[in-house]
């Protein structure tokens, strides 16, 4: 598995770097597609098809929405480059460096992937029945819609909120004359 | 037996994918790249799917692989056509050694810069 996963991660990282460097916003959006597709493929490799499907559909839809927005605004990257921004770059690089160092120091104490003490997951697959207590064949569906259905209500509400926000902010007139 | 035929078909499919990707890198302009990539990669993927179908037979996996083949065959050329037309309207030039461009001439006759049709 690792022989496939590592190249995919390299692909995603390179794609992200290239997307940052592109000068036109459209190119950036298109190149971000590499990151999204690579992520979806990585989920597939990790045998999480639910996530892979969600990632691919969301990737496509966000691509469409990006395009819609770029069409309405501009496709030029208008941020200033180079001049006068050096302190920012230095700060960002320093922060990233500190973050990576701290993370690699801290994450060493975390049990390796795949064999942490999966306490909750063991409980989900309860021992006294064939499947989980919910009777769903797909464990992910059982977790997100039954054990943690309240979370899913919250997530659906996040989407609802976002749509309401978009519709509210993009009204024709904000204030009454 | 089916397994080995399937493996062979899959192998050929991946080989076609390889040709397509080489074409994507080597050929000189968008239209040529589309030519190579669309044809080879979609047929290669179809080959993989068909090989899987041969290996699996009528199980859930095999049938879905079979269903995927017509879908690829319909969507891939359409997408290629749409991209080529979009690129041409967006003003992407043909390779400088190209022989002729009758589409460009037609567009000029119909109206300057406007997407025609």
């Amino acid at each position: 598995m690792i022989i496939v996963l590592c190249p995919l991660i390299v692909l995603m990282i390179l794609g992200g770097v290239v997307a940052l460097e592109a000068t036109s916003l459209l190119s950036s959006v298109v190149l971000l597609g590499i990151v999204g597709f690579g992520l979806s493929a990585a989920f597939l490799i990790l045998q999480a098809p639910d996530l892979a499907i969600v990632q691919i559909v969301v990737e496509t839809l966000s691509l469409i929405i990006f395009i819609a927005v770029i069409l309405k605004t501009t496709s030029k990257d208008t941020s200033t480059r180079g001049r006068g921004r050096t302190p920012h770059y230095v700060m960002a690089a320093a922060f990233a460096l500190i973050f990576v160092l701290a993370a690699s120091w801290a994450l060493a104490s975390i049990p390796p992937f795949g064999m942490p003490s999966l306490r909750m997951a063991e409980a989900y697959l309860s021992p006294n029945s064939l499947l989980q207590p919910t009777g769903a064949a797909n464990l992910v569906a059982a977790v997100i819609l039954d054990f943690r259905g309240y979370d899913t209500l919250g997530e659906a509400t996040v989407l609802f909120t976002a749509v309401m926000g978009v519709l509210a902010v993009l009204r024709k007139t904000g204030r009454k004359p | 037996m089916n397994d080995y035929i399937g493996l062979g078909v899959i192998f050929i499919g991946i080989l076609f994918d390889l040709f397509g990707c080489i074409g994507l890198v080597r050929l000189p302009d968008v239209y040529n790249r589309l030519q190579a990539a669309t044809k080879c990669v979609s047929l290669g993927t179809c080959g993989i799917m068909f090989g899987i179908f041969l290996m699996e037979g009528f199980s859930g996996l095999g049938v879905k692989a079979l269903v995927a083949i017509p879908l690829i065959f319909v969507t891939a050329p359409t997408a290629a056509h749409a991209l080529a037309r979009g690129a041409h309207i967006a003003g992407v030039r043909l390779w400088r050694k190209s022989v002729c461009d009758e589409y460009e001439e037609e567009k000029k006759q119909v109206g300057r810069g406007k997407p025609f049709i």
Partner: protein
Amino acid sequence: MRGMTPIVKTVTRGMAGMIFLYGIYIVLHGHLTPGGGFAGGVMVAAAFVLVFLAKGSPEAVSEAKKERSSMAESLGILTFWVLAMIGLIGGTFFYNFLTKGKPFRLLSAGFIPLNNIAIGIEVAGALFAIFITLAVLKAGGKK
């Protein structure tokens, strides 16, 4: 000419239905196979988006569609809420009040398929509403 070339239009006429059907398949089989309300809902929205893209759509129709998809979104999430509240009346919030059924059948796992359908409707409405809002938005005001 409104919309895209005849080739794309013709292919869309066939493909939109298939995408829609596949989206619904993912929603309905969320508790058996990968996917679920969210992924399927996005695919259903994408089917409508594809038709919209290929045909192009006059603005007046789009406004009405936006309202309708926003309503569908509210209805979907309200259904989800009602399903949760039925549990509250019977015992606790989000109590799985239906019978569990036999595993691997379509009608199993209590209210999970119903939840999936509710979320699917909500997501489809939500994303189509966002798409229409952004696609028909007239960039006004100061440029």
